[in-house]
Every structure is written in structure tokens, then in C-alpha cells.
């Protein structure tokens, strides 16, 4: 079975890390290469499939009309969900949402929401009555680590390619007709690191995540802001380590953004 191979790999990952190496030969600050495919799902208003190394993940957007929250009658909303479906890994189980899937969904959500890249006021249809809610859900199909960044990249690509449906005079969606695109002002991207054997590495694989003591994710924008942070797992980081990861995240985020834009243009 696949799990037994994994057990043997854990100690190897730690040992290699101490020697400054990784199982797949990458440098500690090297992301795996990724490809993005847009618009795979025609029933979604926007969708993207990412292959990040062996991690395959699909994100899709559904636009819905809803009543606004009472405290913000002229603002729409976004909602981000993740499901770690057992199809993607033999360790995932079906059932009520697990802590892990809620965490990854909320961190990806904050990265996009708090970057203020989506203008919620523009999602208002009629003040106090109807607003757009953009639901983004993502699912790994093959989980080989770093669903945080894979979810954030695919999610951003799905948002950027999402179309807003046309409405009739009763605010019901007219099928297959669109008003325009969902506008994004920034391109926030999450960059996640793990600490293995005292060493910090970016874009961990499944085995590396299993061997890790601690995890850190930070969402960065192209204009020099951080939009969200999350430290996860039992271990800890020093302030210097956090600063190192933030600096790296801006550099890696910029590279990822360039790669993503290039692929989206094609």
C-alpha cells in the first residue's frame, strides 16, 4: 500500500533536510512548476484546474443572487469552500468538514478577501434587496501537498476568468448570458512554507508536510502588501524565520504571478 512507502520516507525527508537537500532534488526556496487550464467546467461561471507538481486541484465559481447582510446592505460577498475528498488521497475521509479543510478554505478566503481585490460594492444589485455572492469552491483530485498555494492560485485564476450572469427584471439569472467579467484590482497569492528538521522550505509535498514541525502561509500582493498570514501545526518559528519567509514570499509570489498571467493569456 502507498501509506507504507510514506512512513519510510518521513525520516528520510528530515535527514535530507538537515543536509540541505529535498527528496525531489529541489532547492528549499524552489516552487514546483505548475500549469493552469481555464474554463474546464462549463456550468461554472469561472473555473481553473492547476497541476502543481503532482498536486492536481480544481477551483470553480458559482455566482448566486442573495439578500445582503443587514450591516452591509449595499455590498455583495464572496464565499470560499474546500473539500478534501477521499478521491484525492487514501488518508482523506468523507464526512462532515474536517478542521484541515476548513482551515485551508479560510486561509485562501482571507488571502483574496482581505487584499480588497474584489470590490464588494460592485457586487450590489439593488441596495438592501439583492446582491451577488461569488462562491468559490476547490477540490484536490490528487493531493501531493501544498493545497494552500494550489487552492489560492487556481482560485485566483477562476475569479479572474469568472463572468457575471445577466439578470432579468425579477433578478433571476438568465442562462448562458453574461453582463461582463468579475473585476479584480489585485492579484493576491499565497506562499506557504514548512519547517522540516529545523530547515525552512517552500511548497511542500505531501511527505514533506507529514514530516514538518510547523507551517506558515502568507498572502502577498503585487503592490507590496501582505493580506493574510497563518501559522499552522504544532511547532514554532522565530521572528527571524518569519521575516525570512515574508521576504521570500514576495519574491516567489511575484514569480508565480508572472507565470500565471503568462499562462492565462494563452
Amino acid at each position, binding site marked *: 500500500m502507498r501509506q507504507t512507502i510514506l512512513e519510510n520516507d518521513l525520516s528520510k525527508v528530515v535527514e535530507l533536510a538537515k543536509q540541505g537537500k529535498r527528496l525531489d532534488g529541489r532547492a528549499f526556496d524552489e516552487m514546483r512548476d505548475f500549469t493552469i487550464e481555464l474554463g474546464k467546467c462549463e456550468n461554472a461561471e469561472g473555473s481553473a484546474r492547476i497541476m502543481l507538481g*503532482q498536486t492536481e486541484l480544481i477551483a470553480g465559481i*458559482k455566482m448566486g443572487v442573495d439578500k445582503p447582510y443587514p450591516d452591509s446592505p449595499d455590498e455583495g460577498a464572496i464565499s470560499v469552500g474546500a473539500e478534501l475528498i477521499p*478521491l484525492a488521497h487514501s488518508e482523506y475521509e468523507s464526512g462532515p468538514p474536517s478542521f484541515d479543510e476548513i482551515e485551508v478554505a479560510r486561509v485562501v478566503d482571507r488571502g483574496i478577501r482581505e487584499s480588497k481585490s474584489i470590490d464588494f460594492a460592485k457586487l450590489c444589485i439593488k441596495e438592501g434587496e439583492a446582491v451577488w455572492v461569488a462562491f468559490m469552491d476547490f477540490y484536490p483530485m490528487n493531493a501531493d501537498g501544498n493545497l494552500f498555494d494550489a487552492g489560492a492560485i487556481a482560485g485566483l485564476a477562476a475569479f479572474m476568468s469568472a463572468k457575471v450572469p445577466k439578470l*432579468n427584471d425579477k433578478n433571476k439569472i438568465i442562462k448562458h448570458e453574461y453582463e461582463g467579467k468579475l473585476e479584480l484590482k489585485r492579484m493576491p497569492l499565497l506562499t506557504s512554507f514548512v519547517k522540516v528538521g529545523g530547515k525552512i522550505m517552500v511548497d511542500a509535498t505531501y511527505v514533506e508536510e507529514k514530516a514538518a514541525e510547523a507551517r506558515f502561509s502568507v498572502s502577498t500582493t503585487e503592490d507590496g502588501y501582505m493580506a493574510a498570514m497563518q501559522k499552522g501545526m504544532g511547532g514554532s518559528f522565530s521572528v527571524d524565520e518569519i521575516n525570512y519567509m515574508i521576504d521570500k514570499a514576495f519574491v516567489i509570489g511575484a514569480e508565480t504571478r508572472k507565470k500565471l498571467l503568462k499562462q492565462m493569456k494563452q
Partner: protein
Amino acid sequence: MTEEKIPDYKKDKKRVDGRKMDELRPISIKVGVLPNADGSAYLEWGQNKVYAAVHGPREALPKHTQNPYKAVVKVNYRMTTFSVPERKQPRPNRRDMEISKVLGEALDKVIFTEQFPNTEISVYVEVIDSNAGSRVACLTAASCALANAGIPMRDLVAATGIGKAFGELIVDLDKNEEDAPDAVDIPFGIMPNSGEIVLLQMDGLLTKEEWDKLVPMGMKACADVYAVQKKALQEKFSLSEVSEKNVEAVIEAKPKQDKEAKAKTDAKTEKKDSKAKKVRK
């Protein structure tokens, strides 16, 4: 809303999307796409897009679910929230549960479950885009994933929708046809080699005469589905090491060698003959 004209298939002689009455939508299958799974398949069937993954046979847990005589086949049919026109609630609904049950029972028949007592064979199918017929698409993909996992099977399962819409008996209904006022939808799955039926559901009003005409249409369509399944599995297994081009080259090269060899032996025999002739002379 603009008023839409209701199609009449008896008069039109072709369907809304231009297909013939007994024509399937385009199907493509790729086997072994998910490295984490023991077996997997990705299938596109018209607009339907589904993944299937097999984990196992593995110890069935909790223990009371184990059967000491055979493996338990468990199918989990799910749809992503964005795979349907109106967002689906993430948690499984009654439809998901029922489909999971009948698909599991359809696959149970083809697997040699008695070879794996106390285990569970988990089959996960995830619909990422849909347009009527997602369950037969999932069953078709799932049986390929099982074969990819190397699980011993009596046969594959090939499935399609059959039924009626706009006054005609048809194969592989799409969403327009499923919403027709006279729609009859029959998910239909068979073991292609024996022709036995392993999946059968129906909703709508149908006469026995119409059913009698539909069965052969379904059998023929499933045979077409089976051909795509076989091709996908062959692509995965027989030609995974050697590309098709290389194989062709080998096949072409062979007769050449034969010719050369033949020419040599011919020359030898000629020489021998001439020697013999000389001797005779």
C-alpha cells in the same frame, strides 16, 4: 424569456444538438491519471466531466463492515458545487446516496470480490461538470479505474442513458431532452461480453413496445462505449513503454529484415544450385 419552439423529432429527423437518434455524444477516457490512487480514470462525455479513483482492496473499517467471504465494494458518487447550473450544496444529498448505492451494486457483480475477504474496494467518482447522464459516465469511468487498479474482473461495465424525448426513442439524452415534456430516462449499464444488465433505473412513461425497441439500441450504444473503454485501457497498458510510432517502425522494419534474409538464403541456394549444376556438369 423568448418563447421556444418545442422540437418534434419524428418530423425533424435529427436532435436538438444535431445527433442521430441512436448516436452517442463524443466520449474520451484517460486511464491512470491520479498517481495517489491505486487506479483512476478521467472521462469526458459531451459536457460531462468526471474523475474516478479506486483505493484498495484495503482493510474494511470499522470492523463490523467486513465480510469474511468477500470484499465490500463501496462507491461514493459526488458532484462539485459548480458542476451544475445552480450551485449544489456541498454535503451529499439523497440523490448522491442513491446513485452511490446502485453504482456500487452494478460494479459488485463484475469484481471477483470473493478473492478479497474482509476488505473494502473504495471507488470515488467526482463530477466536475455535468449535462445529463453523469451517473452512467461515472460508472463507465469507474470500471476503467478498477481495471487500472489491477482488480480481477469478469468484465467491464459499459453504460449509457436510453429513453425517449420529443416523440422519438433515443440514446444518451442530454439536458434539453431530459427536460422534454414526454421525457423517459433510463440509465442502462451492461457487462458487454455477456450482455447482462447491471444498472437499470427509469423515470417517465413508457410502453412495453417502446422498451422492446430501446433494449437493442442500448446494447449497441454500450458496445460503442465499451470500444472506447478498451482503447483507453490498451493505450495505458500495451503501449505505455513504446510509443505507437516505434511500434509501427518495428512492424515495418520486420518484413525488410525478412526480405534481406530471404535474399541471402536465396543467394545461397542459388550458389548451391549453381555448384550442384557445376558438379553435374
